[in-house]
């Protein structure tokens, strides 16, 4: 499922405004939450919240005025929107899978399927790189450094890593 279309031009300006709006909203939440803290504990986050809200307004107004004058920030926010979505989805699914079935299988799957999902079809190379990486990580982390890895369903390896 190769994706080839690019993001709409001008999305950078909208993203600028959107992020500033989110920042202002977040700063208001910070101010409201911090107001409930006792004395000294409240002052520091309150000052930061107010400063962030002010700076967020500055960025938002600046971009809105630029758009009105026809000087909005050019270009698109993402280099390739659909691929970005694929990358983000892969990250979410990967962490979800690691938390459920452990590190090994999701890691091999990520190494093969992520490149494939953006059009890279040299399966053999992807597979070899993924396997070598996972084996190297297991050798370095589990055997050499004796560090924990997420509990794995693979038996008997799964029991060894628990």
């Amino acid at each position: 499922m190769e994706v080839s279309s690019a993001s709409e031009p001008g999305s950078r300006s909208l993203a600028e405004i959107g992020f500033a709006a989110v920042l202002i909203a977040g700063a208001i939440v910070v101010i409201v939450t911090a107001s409930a803290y006792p004395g000294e504990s409240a002052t520091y986050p309150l000052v930061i919240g107010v400063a962030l809200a002010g700076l967020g307004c500055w960025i938002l107004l600046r971009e809105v005025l630029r758009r009105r004058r026809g000087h909005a920030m050019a270009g698109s926010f993402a280099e390739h929107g659909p691929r970005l979505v694929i990358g983000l989805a892969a990250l979410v699914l990967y962490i979800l899978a690691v938390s459920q079935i452990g590190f090994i299988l999701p890691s091999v799957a990520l190494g093969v399927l992520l490149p494939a999902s953006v059009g890279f079809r040299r399966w053999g190379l992807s597979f070899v790189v993924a396997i070598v990486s996972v084996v190297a990580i297991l050798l370095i982390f589990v055997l050499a450094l004796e560090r924990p890895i997420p509990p794995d369903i693979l038996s008997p390896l799964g029991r060894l890593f628990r």
Partner: protein
Amino acid sequence: MIDALLHAVPLVFAPMNILAMIIGVIAGLVVGCLPGLTVVTGLAVLIPLTFGLDPLFALGMMAGMYNGGSYGGAIPAILMRVPGTPASVATVLDGYKMTQKGQAAYALQVALLSGVIGSVLSSIALIVLSPPLVSFSLLFGPIEYFWLGILGLATVSSLLGDDLPKGLIACGIGLLIGAVGQDISNGTERFTFGQLELLDGFSAIVLLTGLFAVPPVLQMVEEAVKTGMSGDKLKLHAQGSVLRQWRYFMPVWLRSSVIGIIIGILPGAGGSMSSFLAYNEAKRVAREPETFGHGNPEGVAASECGNGADNAASLIPALALGIPGSGVAAVILGGLLVHGLRPGPQLFREHPDIVYGFMLQFLVTSLMLAVLGGLAATRIFGQVLRLPRIVLAPVILLFVTIGVYSVNNAVFDLWVLLGVGVIGYVLERLDYPSAPIVLGLLLGPMIESQLRLALTISGGRTAALVSTPIAITLALLSAAILLTPAWRKLRMSA
């Protein structure tokens, strides 16, 4: 200082620490030569992997990666006309022209030796200049430390980006993240929202890794580069000895090293600025400046020497005062704190073996680079350039995931990594600098506690914050740095 250095020597040359430095240099060469990955990304991946290890083992890897990555960027710059790191952009100008003339191997040798000389002189500057700066900082009390923290935030927010409000927002986000967790003075829980994992605040390692390692991965997926470099370009054969031509290169090396060291020490500068300034200076004083940009080896020497010379120098204010001279230094500062090492006089007093050992590791890894970055090694490590970059994206993710998980043995940290990574990507796309976030997180708690202490000592008088000459100087410096962008704008419009 001499005693501390002598004590550190056996530690630095312990077999495991030598191994760490070798691994660091090789990893740095690989990271540096991969376009799209910077030394900062490499360090962000490395720091969680080294968590829990002996500090000098971890710091040796960091020093090696910094020096190795600095030269690694020159390999694709010379062979492919693609700078591996922003600091190797100036190397492209003459380096690639030399490749076109069939002098690729010679250009790589010039770049390597120049980088080594710059790095060695920079390491010596680090060893010589840090202790006096530390002695000066012994005059500091809570008020001065408060202003020092503010100065650090002001420099990084104002000078590391092109847009002051964005730098300040990034800094504010970092300060806010640093405020999450229990207030150490009275135990109040701030912004934990009932999550036990947040009682001690966000882990600096997870934050560093998310901010600097995840965005490049997402960018690699977006770019989806499906081909690697042709193997023919790595068939390198020696073309004369650069060492034998030392008289020819010496003036360029000395000038570029001085420029690199000065730029490295200055907060907010470094990297590409030092290599470009060194390149321009070499061109300005050259007998035939018109040959620059057409394959003049002096251009490659100046750029790479300036680039190497700002590496260790950028750590002088970072180690002595806690103010990093560059984005990379900010990340290394985070790496030190992760290992429980807080920069400043305390570090020099309580852990002289580690801090001087770290400085020596910079010197040793600079010299190691001469061997590990040679033509034979470039042929081996350069093979990674043949792999399509899209295949490398998941590999980075695997290392990052396992490194972050093993810090607290918690899946929660992986979700934090994802969230911070996405925020880091958005900030990067919108040209918000990431280094102020890290510095805000690291310096925020110190600034808050020193401010409270200063006000408690003075009985709540805010005027006490500007009651000493050092405090006034630091406050004025911070104000001047914050006003620099406005002054620049004014000058440009005049």
